[in-house]
């Protein structure tokens, strides 16, 4: 009879109850057909339970169901994948327990658990009572969603900051010029006005370039000579580099290395990467540009010995107008769009852009461009 009790305990469904009654009524003379029936019913119930468990396991959320004493009855696979580290796991499970206790008192609750990582993760735990018999909790990873929210809100703040600052400065400078009579002061103010106007123009140029790259569905693919692309990028920033006393050099590039890609876009991306590297490297530092071929494409590498990027900002620097340090941004004169242009170029080519960096040690950007065959024209 053991299997019957086990089954009753397992589902408590009406099918099993009926079976149990039939089983006990005819128990003195158990014939083989009844045994087969039992066995097949057992298999059916087991299959149903398995299917439910499989359905739970397929869910992207963690699900935990408990009885009225708080003992866990069901736990799906996703609950085990919540914490990457043991300590994250413990913190999430503690939140689950805490909210389940409240649900068992008949009160639904939810809690957002922020795990500082790295990598940073945000998990939402919901707990609901299931009548008088128990409670269930769901665990949902909302890291990506909350990151996107942050991107959206920061974007508006950042773009208005970047555009308003030079325009505000222009207005103030012009107002002062109206009243001013001293020629030396006038010439100084006029100089500043020109600088601010250039700044606005540069932002608008970058915005236009970004939207062009964003919108251009079709790449103008041609055979590009990798060595000349690298040379173009390193010489384009020669003046700033000399001023900052930063040595820009090209690494060894295999002779005759070619890649099929949009020449203008790759040149723009590399130019932006080298531009950044030079800007954020102190006097006496070095910037190295290299190209490493593999069977499928070319990886352009731009490495500097500059100030580096804080770990927390690494996954956000490719956003439009994102600034690691806003106080510093005016001094370096960038527009905050360079890296998002690079990201779009990578995306357009089906490639990738990655960065590894440590503050005080420098950054290395890797732009991978897969080779693509020239379309037949």
């Amino acid at each position, binding site marked *: 009879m053991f299997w019957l009790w086990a089954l009753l305990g397992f589902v408590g469904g009406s099918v099993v109850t009926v079976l149990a009654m039939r089983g006990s009524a005819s128990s003195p003379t158990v014939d083989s057909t009844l045994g087969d029936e039992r066995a097949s019913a057992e298999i059916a119930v087991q299959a149903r339970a398995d299917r439910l468990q499989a359905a739970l396991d397929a869910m992207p959320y963690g699900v935990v169901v408990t009885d009225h004493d708080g003992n866990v009855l069901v736990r799906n696979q996703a609950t085990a994948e919540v914490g990457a580290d*043991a300590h994250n796991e413990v913190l999430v499970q503690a939140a689950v327990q805490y909210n389940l206790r409240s649900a068992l008192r008949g009160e639904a609750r939810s809690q957002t658990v922020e795990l500082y990582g790295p990598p940073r993760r945000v998990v939402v735990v919901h707990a609901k009572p299931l009548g008088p018999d128990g409670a269930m909790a769901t665990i949902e990873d909302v890291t990506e969603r909350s990151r996107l929210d942050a991107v959206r809100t920061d974007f508006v703040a950042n773009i208005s900051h970047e555009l308003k600052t030079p325009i505000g400065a222009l207005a103030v400078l012009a107002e002062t010029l109206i009243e001013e009579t001293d020629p030396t002061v006038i010439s100084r103010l006029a100089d500043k006005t020109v600088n601010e106007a250039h700044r606005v123009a540069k932002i608008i140029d970058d915005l236009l370039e970004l939207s062009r790259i964003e919108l251009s569905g079709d790449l103008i693919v041609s055979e590009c000579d990798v060595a000349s692309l690298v040379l173009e990028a390193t010489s384009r920033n020669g003046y700033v580099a000399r001023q900052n006393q930063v040595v820009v050099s090209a690494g060894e590039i295999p002779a005759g290395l070619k890649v099929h890609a949009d020449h203008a876009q790759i040149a723009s991306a590399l130019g932006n990467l080298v531009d950044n590297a030079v800007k954020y490297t102190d006097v006496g530092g070095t910037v190295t540009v290299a190209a490493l071929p593999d069977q499928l494409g070319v990886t352009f590498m731009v490495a500097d010995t500059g100030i580096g990027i804080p770990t927390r900002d690494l996954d956000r620097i490719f956003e439009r107008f994102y600034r690691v340090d806003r106080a510093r941004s005016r001094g370096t004169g960038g527009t905050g769009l360079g890296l998002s242009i690079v990201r779009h170029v990578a995306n357009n080519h089906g490639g990738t852009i990655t960065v590894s960096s440590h503050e005080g040690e420098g950054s290395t950007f890797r732009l991978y461009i897969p080779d693509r065959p020239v379309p037949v024209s």
Partner: protein
Amino acid sequence: MNELRKSFHHDIEDVRTELVHLAAFVTESIPRATAVLLTGDLEGADMIIGGDDEIDARSLDLEDRCVQILALQAPVAGDLRQIVAALKMVAEVERSADLVCNICKAARRIYGHELDPTLRGIITRMGEQAQQLYIAAIESFVENDAAKAAAIDDMDDYLDDLQRQFVQAIFESHAAGRIDLQVAVQLAVVARFYERIGDHAVNIGERVRFVVTGWLPEHRGAARFRSRPDETGEIMRPVDQGTGD
């Protein structure tokens, strides 16, 4: 197993779970404190410092539970080691939480001062390493893994190295006039806090080894001491561990 024994083992398991939870809390607060320090986030500093009261309360509660188990259940052998080790480990975790608070207090004191990228970089690395040590300590405890616990000591060497590098970088930054003396002193103290957090993780690892093997690294030194003759020329005998003679 009779009912009484079942509840006894349940109690020990509860103590272990709570201890892991406290340690996880500390592990989580290390990168938070590092971010507070690097971004000058005063609100975050207040939050962490305020949160320490909870750690204190729960540590005391956990200690009480350990003492109660000792008094009421009189555990022996492995169970006794578990409880004694837990008592010691609570203190390590609680002290580590205080050190995390101290980092936040230092962040308040150096608020508004710019730090070199080199200094910021080493602070980031120290924070990461201290957290790694704590993660390893928790994992070794959860898994009763003496080998992993022994590795924590080696991981700590890197943290000690970072501390030395950091002090050197502070000297250079101060000599170049980029930070003033007050900030330099505060930073040196911060480096010490991270290093101490690492030491507490090492101690937890040693206690894990003790639970599993009954052996502590201190036993080596203690054995040396006992084999040394005192002024009378007599070799000291172990008094605490009767071997039957």
